[in-house]
């Protein structure tokens, strides 16, 4: 049996999610630095803002892959985050460049706490989905160790 498209999707998602986990950790560290006064908010926003869209696009990308592979359950699990990203980006402050974070409001305790919480939630979500994709890949993949074992 050939290496299916769905298995390929899972494998790709697995790799991309690993990247997203790094994004999430990066965000958490950045906001923590802001909170403990190590960084200037302008610099910090300038480093974070270019990362926002790539993260969203990566997520959209493998969602589209799952759609093509007709992996409805996986797609369904990702829909809330997708919707959240769309909402988050449409309700961003008035900005000429890409990104979400405004240096003038980021130091507000509510905004900072929200961003930190968002970072942790996303990290948890990506970690869980990482293991889910691993599981999905193992189940579906024709060359997975499980199948090899059962064939023998």
């Amino acid at each position, binding site marked *: 049996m050939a290496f299916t498209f769905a298995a390929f999707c899972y494998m790709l998602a697995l790799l991309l999610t690993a990247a997203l986990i790094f994004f999430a950790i990066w965000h958490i560290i950045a906001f923590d630095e*802001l*909170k403990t*006064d190590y960084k*200037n*908010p*302008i610099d910090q926003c300038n480093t974070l803002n270019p990362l926002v869209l790539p993260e969203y696009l990566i997520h959209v990308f493998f969602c589209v892959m799952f759609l093509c592979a007709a992996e409805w359950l996986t797609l369904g699990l990702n829909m809330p985050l997708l919707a959240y990203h769309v909402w988050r980006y449409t309700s961003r*402050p*008035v*900005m*000429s460049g890409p990104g979400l974070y*405004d*240096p*003038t409001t980021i*130091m*507000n*305790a*509510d905004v900072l706490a929200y961003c930190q919480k968002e970072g942790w939630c996303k990290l948890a979500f990506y970690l869980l989905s990482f293991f889910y994709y691993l599981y999905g890949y193992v189940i579906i993949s024709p060359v997975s160790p499980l199948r090899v074992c059962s064939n023998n």
Partner: protein
Amino acid sequence: MAHRSASTPVLDKTMFYLLQCLLIVQNARLLSHSILLKNFHKCLTIRHSQTFYKFVKMIISKCSKEEKKKDFFPPPGGVYPQGCTQVKCCPHSLYSPLDCPMFPPQPSAGPAQLSPSLAGLSLQSQTPESLRVVNLLQERNLLPPGPVTPPTPCLPQDLQKINCHPEVFRSTLTSIPQTQSLLNKAKLPLGLLLHPFKDLSQLPVVTSSTIVRCRSCRTYINPFVSFLDQRRWKCNLCYRVNDVPEEFMYNPVSRSYGEPHKRPEVQNATIEFIAPSEYMLRPPQPAVYLFVLDVSHNAVETGYLDVVCQSLLENINALPGDSRTKIGFITFDSTIHFYNLQEGLSQPQMLIVSDIDDIFLPTPDSLLVNLNECKELVQDLLKSLPQMFGKTMETQCALGPALQAAFKLLSATGGRVSIFQTQLPSLGVGALKSREDPNQRASAKDIQHLSPATDFYKKLALDCSGQQVAVDLFLLSSQYCDLASLGCISRYSAGSVYYYPSYHQQHNPAGVECFQKDLKRYLTRKIGFEAVMRIRCSKGLSIHTFHGNFFVRSTDLLSLPNVNPDAGFAVQMSIEENLVDMQSVSFQAALLYTSSKGERRIRVHTMCLPVVNSLSDIFAGADVQAITGLLASMAVDRSVTASLSDARDAMTNASIDSLTSFRTSVLTIQQPGLLAPACLRLFPLYILALLKQKAFRTGTSTRLDDRVFAMCQLKYQPLAYVMLMIHPALYRVDDLTDEGSLNVSERIVPQPRVQQLSVEKLSRDGAFLMDAGSVIYLWIGRNCNPNFLTQVLGVPDYAAVPPNMNMLPELDTAESQRTRAFVGWLREQRPFFPILHVIRDESPLKASFLQNMVEDRTESALSYYEFLLHVQQQVSK
């Protein structure tokens, strides 16, 4: 009151008996009183009938009223010496000084001579004045006769005496709750209101090579630290024990050695240090002023250039600065004009840059010149500038590129940019489109476009802030200018915004006068450059949000490229760790700036407040004006991030929630009516006034720019001026007398009573003065006392009052002198110049006068009584 009438005979008898008792035992009055009160409380526990409560409460209140009138019972402030040792419970100094005029504190042989146990007894049974329960639905005259004074924190007297002045540093709660959950229960906001760079008549300045600070939290030494012994002091913010440096042992004031606790740093809560070189990142910058003037057709039409140039010519020697002061000018329409003012030129040279997409400085060195060396050229330019553009036909205006040019010019040194703008910027970067639909002003349910349309101005402001450039905006226009977008340039660069709607040299002389006076103050007031302000607070407290004009650089640090004496700040606080075992907490605001003379200075304000653990103590220490000011700032944020209706609801809920909390958690006796502690009795009134304020009102036609400007002012003005904007003061002035008058620098200033803001207080035979902060109205009744008309206004009768009267004639009569002295005194109390409008019944301005009558019902807003009923309904739910 009808439901009580049936029982009156019984009541009167009891009361008579009580009063008799109280009168007979005059010497042991406290004793008897406390016993009586104690007995009542006993009765309360025995019998729980609702009517009985009423009787008892009424007797108590009647008794206390009787006492007040007769001065029978000394006020709490007089009974106990203020220096109480217990910080946590001393209701006497929570006694709000609101009623002070009736009640001068007097020494008394009372409890001081009683045994401690008896004194303690009366302490418990007597509620502090600020917690006296007021039924708002029944009490009509809530306003004190004079200005509302802030409550005094309940601290030992020796600490309170040196505490920071409330005009400079003020907290919404003068007693800090021990835990966040207690604060949440009280439903009152916790925050600080600051006016750090206020012009002070007396400011101790210390020059010393070492500034003593805590080694771990960098707090400056202040009056609230404790000296463990002569060689060690304990920080009051982080509790670290520090060494006293050798130099600090010597006291320069008394020239004595070994008394570190007598040093000026430890004796004054507000102090200024001259900073040594460690406090400089670069050599202190000179004073640099750049004026950016709009010279398009529209601008020339308003005629503002004459006023600006004239004012600058007059005040050119009074500009704060030293021999290094620099000045420069840029004008702009569809192109940017620079002025070469270099020494040696016979006349100013104008350089035009028409490439507004890629702005550059034609001669970078000679555009900003030393004021002293090139004063004549500058004066020449100022004289010729108004005529230079007299016939211009250019209607476009490239504000964005002009600002970029200004930023480029100043970025090497830092300094102050003053922009004069008269229309919506239409060319180049930062061009804006009109977003306001005038037909929607009154009908729209929710106000749109309160947030900026572009982030160009914000980004530029942040760049400016990084290079220590502040931008002040003068907006003189008759049409919509999108202040919401333009204002960002000042907001994030710590500048200030001035707005003169419908400014025109001929058509609006009152506006011109106001602009002239404001400009004079603006040009000559103190200024601090390249400033930062850090606010430190005791361990356990943390800063939640800042309000004002600045850029927040880190959690407790504000970057202020310029700081001026008319800027106020507000800070929301939260309690992160429980403040158990703490008697008091301290807050310290340190403002590091470069003075116009090139000196690096640090102004430090420290405030100490007691920590309490009961809800009643929190309520007793609530400062209603500070709470209102902070809520107004929070509401401005809310209306920009969420919506105006959301902000309005939040304000109403703030009053409902706090009164509910007071009713359920503090009051032991449930009564009908809307009950509030005396210190919060003005809270619903102020909230209603806020809802009717230009910034937050709905249903009335309000121009978007006016609204946004009002919002800017609420966030940026110091509390004293904000309060007048929210709740104007109304005085009757046709019968001014010298009774109770003040004597200010050999002038007698009458002090009329503050009236409630209701049309019912106006009478046709009087004249009323309304002080609304930036504007003063003098309303003349139709049948006004002819004496007032002739002696003060200098007109024979009512019909002869001119329609556009903006000043009081200088007549040589006692009445005229009194009135002018009073108006002059009101004006002196604020840095801006309020215009005086004399209005009659037919005046077009009558509508805006009546809009300030916040207690009355309007088409779209509730009256004060209706609002109270609404609040009551929600509270008793």
